[in-house]
């Protein structure tokens, strides 16, 4: 599966469009991590627990998007976009979407 955030896959030609595919995941913060982040928040700097958490969640959303594209018979997803929204206290939705296509 080829992913790209450009309108076409560089060096390839799009032969068929299948439509928009999406993948999402909602994650809540973990208490242990939250306490650590709270302490880290006093002095500032990178909150690596959160960086990891968000990167993992985004990876999962991407995998779900890829699975959907695969079920349509696509071999690439172009114009991939990411969005994050905090839906409630301490929970965030990670969302990935793009257009499933067949490239040659």
């Amino acid at each position, binding site marked *: 599966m080829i992913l790209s955030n450009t*309108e076409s896959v560089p060096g390839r030609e799009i032969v068929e469009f299948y439509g928009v595919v999406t993948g999402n995941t909602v994650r809540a913060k973990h208490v242990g991590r939250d306490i650590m982040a709270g302490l880290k928040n006093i002095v500032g700097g*990178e909150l690596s627990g959160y960086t990891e958490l968000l990167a993992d969640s*985004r990876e999962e959303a991407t995998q779900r998007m890829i699975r959907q594209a695969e079920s349509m018979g696509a071999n690439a997803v172009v114009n991939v976009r990411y969005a994050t929204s905090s839906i409630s206290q301490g929970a965030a939705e990670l969302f990935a979407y793009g257009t499933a296509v067949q490239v040659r």
Partner: protein
Amino acid sequence: MDNVEKFNLFMQFGLPLAILVFAYFIGNMIERKHFRNLRKREEAVQGYPVVSFEKLPQDWTVGSAGLVTGSVVVSLDYFKRVIAGLRGLIGGRIKTYEPLLDRARREALLRLVESAKRDGFDAVVNVRLETSRLANSRRDGKGTAGVEMLAFGTGIVLKKRW
């Protein structure tokens, strides 16, 4: 004033003040260290093509492509958050937040470039940067307030290097 009163006074004013001073020094130290680190790593990746448009030069023959990302969550120290809060009352430029976003953006971009290099890509095109604020852990708006910066783009492997 007996000891209990002294203790209460300390817990009310002394402790927050002590944390404020502690946060100021340590926070500044962490920020300076991060900027030094950024400058060093930016030098190392100088000359690597990273662009925010998707049109490729005509003489490039692309072998393969793939998505690359880099992200980071950073937060401001307690002292600077208090200053920013006060500044918010009178409005105007909040200087303490500017370096935070600058750091986050440069770090996310660097991680994108470093991961692209590690994965064997020769260039990254159509780079986009996205900022999102993490939800506060407490209802009153205090607590963890980090900023997440995400950089993503399309990595390109060239068939033949110029």
